[in-house]
């Protein structure tokens, strides 16, 4: 029995090793940006430091609609994300042919309803989008991310099978023992947060399942996409544009009525179809910030008369299961403590992938070859390049002129340039030099960020502390924490990179 089990393990081991290597670099990027996305609203708010005021939802909605009426009167629809206690601004999406992707996605000031008081930035949206679209054209990024998720799940499951001593090594970490230490770290990071890792990989695949497994949809609906959409989003009422202009109903009044329908729960999204037309409709979605599932109740009104056209509350078990699994992945329900735990577990997952990649190299050191050297160097570039990219993104957010043209695309470029530069340096420099140099750069960049932000915005750590400004306080402290972590790594690597003590002693004796 035990020999058969042993051989099964031995047969599974290469699967773990190679699926891990194939997907490792991509998965590291997905994990790091996903971890940041836990704080997507906070990232957005930090990246728009000009917004200091909030306003009640009715006023914010009134102001935003007034602005959209003048900015995009002919757009087929306006899609608004309402402010809440994590996000002071509204987010508006509407079609615009002059925009690079054909639509605009902009933040609006909750008081004035206008975008011009703030620096133009995608905020946390960029990292969120990159997490599953990888900056590739639709649908390729999503398909690649989904495939990476599936390989990741295979790597996790095979990792559990080949881990011989899950319980015996549960608490074991032995430092300064080379490959042994990397394996300990890899095991501990994997085993301790295993429920999270499995959940996040499985539910992550599920979020893109209609794209990767569309056949059930084809089988049931054939080419009738309208019927599919109507069944997928039952709260929406589709109406043809009438072509006769008509003024929009009073938005704050509709908002109030929707809230009453939702038992007083706030509204998170407002979709206005055919604005300014006699066939206008307004759909209000109940906020899911207080429930485990994702999006569960909608109310649609006639956009001119204000008559209630449809009130949909999700009760179907299959749909609820899907939305709970989706909700578990995005963790929007999470109260503060849970959110930080998501963040920590995300860091553990990033660390699991990074240590796995390093282990692949460490285990093969005795027989050096070109592939090994290549993997080792790319590892350096990825593990230090991603954090360096984040630092560059936040630096760019503070330093680029607030209203320069195409600022929204300029900011993310710094993320990619810094990441690319790290890869380039890692490919050129010997790894034992590149490791400490690049991680020192990350440490310096992160440590300087709070000071830079203070100089530019006037909102420093001390002011944040006095004002009880948790957003800036948290951001500054996190930056310092990461700086400290990378400084620690730099010191450890410099010690490791230096020649062994005997060699040094001999050299000194010779001199």
């Amino acid at each position, binding site marked *: 029995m035990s020999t058969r089990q042993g051989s099964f393990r031995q047969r599974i081991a290469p699967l773990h090793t190679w699926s891990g290597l194939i997907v490792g670099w991509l998965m590291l990027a997905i994990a790091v940006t996903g971890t940041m996305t836990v704080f997507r609203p906070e990232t957005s708010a930090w990246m728009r430091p000009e917004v200091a005021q909030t306003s009640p939802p009715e006023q914010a909605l009134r102001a935003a609609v007034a602005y959209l009426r003048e900015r995009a009167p002919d757009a087929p629809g306006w899609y608004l994300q309402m402010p809440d206690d994590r996000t002071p601004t509204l987010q508006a999406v509407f079609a615009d042919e002059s925009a690079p992707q054909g639509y605009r996605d902009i933040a609006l000031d909750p008081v004035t309803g206008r975008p011009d008081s703030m620096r133009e930035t995608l905020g946390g949206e960029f990292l969120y989008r990159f997490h599953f679209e990888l900056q590739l054209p639709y649908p390729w990024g999503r398909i690649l991310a989904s495939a990476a998720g599936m390989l990741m799940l295979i790597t996790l499951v095979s990792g559990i099978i080949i881990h011989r001593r899950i319980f015996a090594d549960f608490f074991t970490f032995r430092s300064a023992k080379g490959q042994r230490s990397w394996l300990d770290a890899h095991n501990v990071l994997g085993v301790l947060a295993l429920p999270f890792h499995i959940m996040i990989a499985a539910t992550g695949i599920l979020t893109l399942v209609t794209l990767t497994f569309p056949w059930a949809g084809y089988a049931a609906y054939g080419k009738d996409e309208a019927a599919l959409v109507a069944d997928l989003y039952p709260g929406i009422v589709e109406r043809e544009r009438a072509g006769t202009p008509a003024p929009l109903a009073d938005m704050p009044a509709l908002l109030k009525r929707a809230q009453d329908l939702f038992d007083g729960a706030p509204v998170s999204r407002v979709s206005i179809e055919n604005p300014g037309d006699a066939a206008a409709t307004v759909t209000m979605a109940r906020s899911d910030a207080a429930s485990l599932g994702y999006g569960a109740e909608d109310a649609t009104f006639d956009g001119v008369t204000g008559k209630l056209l449809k009130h949909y509350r999700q009760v179907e078990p299959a749909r609820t299961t899907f939305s709970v699994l989706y909700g578990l992945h995005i963790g929007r329900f999470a109260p503060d403590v849970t959110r930080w*735990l998501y963040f920590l577990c995300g860091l553990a997952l990033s660390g699991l992938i990074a240590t796995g990649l390093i282990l692949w190299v460490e285990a093969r050191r005795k027989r050096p070859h070109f592939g090994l050297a290549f993997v080792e160097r790319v590892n350096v570039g990825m593990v230090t390049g991603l954090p360096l990219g984040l630092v560059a993104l936040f630096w760019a957010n503070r330093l680029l002129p607030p209203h320069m043209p195409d600022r929204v695309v300029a900011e993310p470029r710094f993320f990619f340039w810094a990441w690319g530069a790290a890869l380039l340096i890692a490919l050129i420099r010997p790894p034992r030099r590149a490791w400490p140099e690049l991680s020192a750069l990350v440490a310096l960049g992160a440590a300087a960020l709070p000071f830079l932000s203070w100089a530019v915005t006037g909102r420093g750590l001390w002011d944040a502390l006095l004002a009880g400004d948790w957003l800036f306080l948290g951001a500054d402290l996190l930056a310092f924490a990461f700086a400290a972590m990378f400084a620690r790594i730099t010191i450890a690597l410099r010690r490791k990179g230096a020649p062994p003590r005997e060699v040094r002693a001999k050299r000194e004796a010779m001199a």
Partner: protein
Amino acid sequence: MSALASLLFATGGFAALSLTMTRHVRQVGTGAAMMPPPRWRAAGWIALALSLVIAVATPDWHFALVQWLGLLALAAGLVVLLLWSRPALLPKATAAAWVAAAVLSLALFL
């Protein structure tokens, strides 16, 4: 607050369970002999069970269950860090975690 009590119980529980394992007993030294291994084991499981009870004793138990899994990961991570950096402190830290968790829970539920 109940999250903190739950975390302390889980940390104490994992620490106690680590003291049933030869490798960690050797790391910790004399303090591990405070109790024989079966008793550490029983205490560890009881503390983990209490950690679960305290975590989910709320109307929002389904959120709390998700949170508890995260707290378990954090608690085990803390034990790993302690065993790596200051193993000799582990038995005392375990006792302190239990006392703090018990006081907090009593304050919360009485």
